[in-house]
């Protein structure tokens, strides 16, 4: 850590967000699919199923981020710039995910035509709704969860998946890629926190959105095992 969050309000918010994150990790620890991954009883088919479900959220991810940027008015033009940059960096991530899916034995048409699962519907709906509000400060809470998950994928899941499925990293590129810019992203997030959390009401909104995002993300992962 080079530059910590500085303002007292930002720091309080960071403490609360850390707790939301820890709780989120425990929720993830209860998801059957991830428990199987932990035990190493996780097949390539499981992995493909995970990507198939995930892709639908990743491809929508760039939409809510872009809308979030456009919902910030002139008083937040600095924030808008940061978020546009972020959206630009990640808006084609789903292509890498699709390539991983094909490399792992899936068919491109399958992943491109699959529907959103119940959790993805809820998560996407919630994020788009929040992003459409004017000055959606609270969405920094959603970014916190999603950024954290990117790091977790890169540092834990990619390796576990390769180990369990006998992979060599050639079909976990999407997950690994998210680890590459960790520090930079985290630093930007801390700066956003400091900028956007300036009152107790904003703090409460950020933490609430982080909580909802975490819960719906979990729901999305729980739903990977469900076929309707």
């Amino acid at each position: 850590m080079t530059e910590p969050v500085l303002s007292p309000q930002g720091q309080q918010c960071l403490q609360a967000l850390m707790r939301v994150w820890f709780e989120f990790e425990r929720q993830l620890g209860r998801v059957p699919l991830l428990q199987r991954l932990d035990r190493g009883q996780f097949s390539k088919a499981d992995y493909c199923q995970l990507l198939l479900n995930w892709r639908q959220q990743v491809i929508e991810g760039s939409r809510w981020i872009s809308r979030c940027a456009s919902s910030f008015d002139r008083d937040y033009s600095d924030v808008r710039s940061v978020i546009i940059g972020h959206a630009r960096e990640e808006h084609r991530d789903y292509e890498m995910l699709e390539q991983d899916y094909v490399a792992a034995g899936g068919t491109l048409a399958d992943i491109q035509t699959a529907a959103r699962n119940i959790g993805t519907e809820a998560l996407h709906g919630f994020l788009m709704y929040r992003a459409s509000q004017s000055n959606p400060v609270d969405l920094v809470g959603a970014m916190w969860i999603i950024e954290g998950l990117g790091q977790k994928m890169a540092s834990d899941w990619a390796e576990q998946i390769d180990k369990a499925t006998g992979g060599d990293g050639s079909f976990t590129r999407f997950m690994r890629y998210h680890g590459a810019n960790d520090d930079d992203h985290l630093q930007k997030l801390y700066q956003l926190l400091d900028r956007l959390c300036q009152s107790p009401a904003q703090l409460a909104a950020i933490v609430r959105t982080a909580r909802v995002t975490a819960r719906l993300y979990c729901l999305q992962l729980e739903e990977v095992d469900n076929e309707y």
Partner: protein
Amino acid sequence: MSVFITSSGHFLPGPPISNDQMEPLLGLVHGKPSRLKRRILQSNGIKTRHYAIDANHNTTISNAGMAAKAAEHCLSTSFLGKRQIKMLSAATSQGDVVLPGFGSMLQAELGLRDIELHSSHGICSSSMMALKAAYTNLLAGEQPNALVVASELTSRLFKASRYEAAGSALDFNAEFLRWMLSDGAGALLLENQPRDKCFRVDWIRSFSHADAYPVCMSVGYPGNNSDSRSWQDYATYAEAEAAGALLIRQDVRLLENIVKLGVDGYLRLISEGRVQPAKVDHVLCHYSSHYFRGKIFDMMQRAGVGIAEHKWYSNLYQRGNTGCASIFIMLDEFRRSQPHQAGDTILCMVPESGRFNNAYMQLTVVEA
């Protein structure tokens, strides 16, 4: 009603054993020196420790024996004699015998009469659970005092012959703790009245997360993850041993969670108003390894609730990681050797990796 820690004691068996002396004492597995030892010792930062076994692998003192020595050391500087002790609360991760409870064996060893008894079972946090049981017993007015003792004799698990009996392959997870854990015992005396300069227990709290995490440290499972049999499910104990089900293991991959969960509990206690970081004068944290100390410290710092480095006290590096006994041995040495004055706040933390139970305690120094 308040509860006070009015005395403490410890027992460490034999002379201090340096890093170079460890392997000759524990033995070469299959006649070969360990390739992991240096790396693990470098990371945990431990310089000396004690063992209750000798180089011929004879046990020099039993686990209950060590516990009794620590208890006697504690009583020798207290206002109470053995006859006045009303409760014994004991903790260990593995007693000398499977049954009966460790507390019973310790009671007999100590010769305590007519006491109320509690045995707590677990890993590093079992001492804190034993302490909490005694603390609440006193708070409820059930007893006026309690002796709380925690003791560990894990070196018996580290004899080269144990690993050899489990076959040829010695995996990292099975070897890891060989270079981490050692033996010792600590004791605290709780009373419902203060004596001289002593510690008032402000609160004890723990948060367990076994529902959300796999087993991280264990004895009783074979190394292979897909085999969920317990050591008791084999036809004979010999088969269990051959399968490696009696080795002590740490799933190192999961270990990092301890940092986050340790800080998580700390943040909860802050938001409940129980901990006020600025008011903490001394931190006694049972971290298993110097490596984790830095990680915990950094994360607390990052969250803006760090506690200055000079307030942290530990004797891990000289006394070793003695599992559940560590926090008592640390508190005892702190009490005897470190400057502290009436009004000082002491925060104790025991994050356990077994299946992630984190215990915390706050003490205030008082002068009767």
